[in-house]
């Protein structure tokens, strides 16, 4: 067999690269074939690993079953970049629901349908954007922890490298802060802390966009693009407007493009959110220079690190006061905010004509199905329905978040406060050291998946600390629950896992219970 001697370099690279989350993938498939069901399959797997929001389907359903605009035209070729109607609808969605700023004095900054490009999901759009700004081996900087798939999107076919810019802010000195005291967790905690040589006890108290870090990396590497995922995956953190503004200024000064991935912009569930819907906007144009809203009244219970602030969300369009200019761009999709990931509908917005022209001229490689476009119009053109959907969805997200955190508290599992998205981060660091020592057979999959890992972590030791994280992950999987390990997200420290809570209460409860079994068993051992 020739195997792939005759393949291109690109292809060989892909085929040779160890599929770093091979274990994850196999686990995922195993789980999918043996899913938990409260009545019929209590022993089935519970996956809290896929970032999907199924909470609001019943509210969406009616809009999906009948498409009043269905017609023959849909079976034929559409316009490049999407039907004008659909692009216009998305422009309206942005201007009226995601953006608050109204450029009264500069109507040319209003969102125009020609500045919107549709795609079959954000995935191929992101890939093409990496390709647009970066040659092979050039670099995009992304604050970490980050959405893991940015790495293959950039690297698989176009060889663009991602470097994570650490954003964790620690409370390094204090082992006895209020959070730990309030945490009714094991009393063994303090003993464990004393045995640790690592900083396992430092708490993440915030996330930040550290411009010094950005500058340092910019000096060291051929950086051509910054990607900011805000609200952030996997943490659900909303970055500070002030810091974003500084980042924007920095990018413009360096002439480096900034892509704002706002795929969770409408999935904000903190009580202090800005939904972007007209009804909720009082001071539409005034409050961008103010402090980030900090919700000190948030009565989240223990288990959460209450020091992580709850910032209010503003789209990058707002932060730029509508004038995004050449270097600032936005990408989003209908997958998360609308729970329509199966439809494959992503979009891009920019005020840079050349960027638009490039994406348009390569848009036939990711055209959005017409039938999807029509379904989307049906959903977002009905203003009343749209507002009520967004509100209802956010209400359910909030309620699911509250249920999940209540459950985590009940089982004494620490987590990081989340403000948005479909997930939160659980902190299982404390039990890592309680894991039994293993011999080295399990290293294969972890050894060289760090080809792309240009993180600031000490690469020599990268296997050691994260090895335990994987080991714990496997234990959890053996206990029939799946959560995503922080290593994939470039968390600075091992022991963090992303947990999706946008599932039925039953799933979430059972899943957390299973996590607890492993976690607390280890802690008590």
């Amino acid at each position, binding site marked *: 067999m020739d195997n792939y001697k005759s393949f*291109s370099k690109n292809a060989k690279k892909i085929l040779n690269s160890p599929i770093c989350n091979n274990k994850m993938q196999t686990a995922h498939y195993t789980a999918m074939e043996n899913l938990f069901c409260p009545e019929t399959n209590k022993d089935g797997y519970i996956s809290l690993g896929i970032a999907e929001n199924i909470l609001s389907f019943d509210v969406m359903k009616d809009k999906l079953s009948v498409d009043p605009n269905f017609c023959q035209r849909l079976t034929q070729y559409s316009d490049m970049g999407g039907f004008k109607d659909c692009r216009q609808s998305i422009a309206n969605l942005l201007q009226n629901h995601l953006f608050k700023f109204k450029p009264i004095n500069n109507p040319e900054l209003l969102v125009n349908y020609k500045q919107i490009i549709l795609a079959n999901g954000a995935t191929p759009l992101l890939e093409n954007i990496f390709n647009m700004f970066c040659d092979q081996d050039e670099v995009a900087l992304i604050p970490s922890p980050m959405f893991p798939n940015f790495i293959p999107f950039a690297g698989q076919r176009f060889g663009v490298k991602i470097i994570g810019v650490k954003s964790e802010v620690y409370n390094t000195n204090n082992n006895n802060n209020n959070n730990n005291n309030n945490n009714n967790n094991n009393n063994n905690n303090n003993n464990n802390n004393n045995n640790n040589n690592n900083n396992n006890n430092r708490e993440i108290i915030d996330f930040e966009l550290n411009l010094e870090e950005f500058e340092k990396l910019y000096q060291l590497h051929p950086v051509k693009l910054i990607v900011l995922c805000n609200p952030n995956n996997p943490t659900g953190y909303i970055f500070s407007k002030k810091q974003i503004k500084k980042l924007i200024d920095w990018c413009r000064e360096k002439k480096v493009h900034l892509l704002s991935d706002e795929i969770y912009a409408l999935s904000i569930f903190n009580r202090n959110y800005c939904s972007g819907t007209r009804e909720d906007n009082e001071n539409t144009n005034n409050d961008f220079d103010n402090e980030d809203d900090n919700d000190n009244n948030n009565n989240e219970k223990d288990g959460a690190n209450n020091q992580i602030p709850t910032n209010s969300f503003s789209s990058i369009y707002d932060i730029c006061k509508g004038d995004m200019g050449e270097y600032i761009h936005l990408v989003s999709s209908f997958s998360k905010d609308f729970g329509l990931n199966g439809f494959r509908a992503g979009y891009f917005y920019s005020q840079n004509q050349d960027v638009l022209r490039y994406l348009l001229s390569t848009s036939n490689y990711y055209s959005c199905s017409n039938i*999807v476009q029509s379904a989307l119009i049906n959903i977002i053109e009905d203003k009343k329905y749209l507002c009520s959907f967004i509100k209802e969805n956010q209400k359910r997200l909030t309620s699911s978040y509250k249920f999940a955190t209540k459950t985590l508290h009940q089982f004494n599992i620490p987590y990081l406060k989340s403000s948005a998205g479909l997930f939160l981060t659980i902190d299982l660091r404390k039990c890592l050291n309680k894991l039994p020592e293993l011999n080295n057979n399990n290293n294969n999959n972890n050894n060289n998946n760090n080809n792309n890992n240009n993180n600031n972590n000490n690469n020599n030791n990268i296997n050691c600390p994260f090895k335990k994280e994987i080991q714990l992950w496997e234990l959890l999987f053996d206990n029939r629950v799946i959560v995503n390990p922080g290593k994939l997200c470039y968390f600075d420290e091992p022991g963090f896992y992303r947990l999706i809570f946008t599932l039925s209460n039953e799933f979430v409860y059972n899943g957390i219970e299973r996590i607890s079994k492993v976690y607390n068993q280890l802690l008590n051992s």
Partner: protein
Amino acid sequence: MDLNTQFEGFSDNAIRLLSAPKGNSKLAMAHFMAMSYLYNSKDNPNGYISLGIAENVLSYDVLKEKLDLGMAPPQSITQYSEIGGIPELRELIAEQLLQNQVFKGYRPPNEKFLVKKEQILVSGGVTPLLENVFNLFCNEGEKCIIPSPFYPSFVYDAYQRFGVKVIAAKSEIFNNNNNNNSEEEDSEIIDFHLDLNEFESLYNQGGVKMVLLCNPNNPTGYIFKPTEIKKLVEWCQKKKIHLISDEIYALSVFNTESTTNQFKSVYEILEGNLGEYVHILNGFSKDFCLNGYRIGYFYSQNETVFQYMISTSAFYSCSNIAQYTAINILKDREYLERYIKTNQSNLKEAYEFASNLLNQYSIPFIKSSSGVFLSLDLRACLKCIPDGDDHENNNQDKFSKEIILWEKIFKNKVFLNSGKLCYFEKPGFFRLIFTLPKDFVEQGIKRIANVYNSLLK
């Protein structure tokens, strides 16, 4: 804005693309103009008629009943479906569509060569699949041989983002049997062939990593001879280069004369044993008139090739709604066969309608056996275009008069695809789509005839 700052921060790839001379921008603008002012027999009799877009709208009424997914779509339609496609769809494509229809029920003597669903990959259209296949076998600057005339977009799909070059292997056979004699512009094309000498000489120029065969062919509707295809496969296997068989018009065959070739998929020709080097591309755009839905699929028996295609499939996933629609169409076997038959008969009728009209107006064309098009041969009136009209300053460009003719036709409100883009060997050929309502086709041909015949006078 000067070039230096205009593409500030763009990659070389992107700059190359944006700076490329806009070869067919005229075409693009014309297309848009036509689309915004379309012919309508009642409301806009002076509107443009586009016979340029390869779409088949003839069988929509038969298709319609399967496009409605019913009143209560399951929630799973909104969620992530399996990588590679919904299993039910992969199974249906393997068995109902490929094995039973495209391969005409052919079952290879060895059972292990039956089409398996694990060998099928569903994608969001054939275009991104194609692009990725070019990238799979060819590095930037490497080449793919394609028999010409061919579908123009092959060139862009290969080149735009991955820099792969397409080179044409001339396949026209002129009736004086002397392709080198360019004086004989009017000798008729009597056949097409896969000339292995041509392939060999192109291969010897270096850098060739794959061959792409579109069969049935666009823009001619020609069906290549199975014996020649077999020889081509053997040649590829000897050279250890891959062959992609793009069979997107496999079910749009309407052989009207017994002298035309019968379509056989490369699968049938190889008795089911595709081996390492042969792969099949197809989709729902043409045979099922669902180009707007974006549904394509890939079939290969080479596990490594398949592994590559599926591990990069996140970049061309197929929408669930489209997949469910495809399932709906394929799972009703009786309906499927009825649809295919009806569509083929509609195609035949439309072809005959168009060809009769063309004969009436004495416009020569290449007989087509399949697809949604035929190729007009308007070479006779090229000579009637005075040399001075060549404003484009392209006296070396033998297609300059073809462009002028194209413009004249467009001025007369008909949009056609010019042969130059299809890499016809000689200028003067134009692709005409006939799968449109009769009044469109009739009007369109009438207007073409006006131009053609008035030039001849």
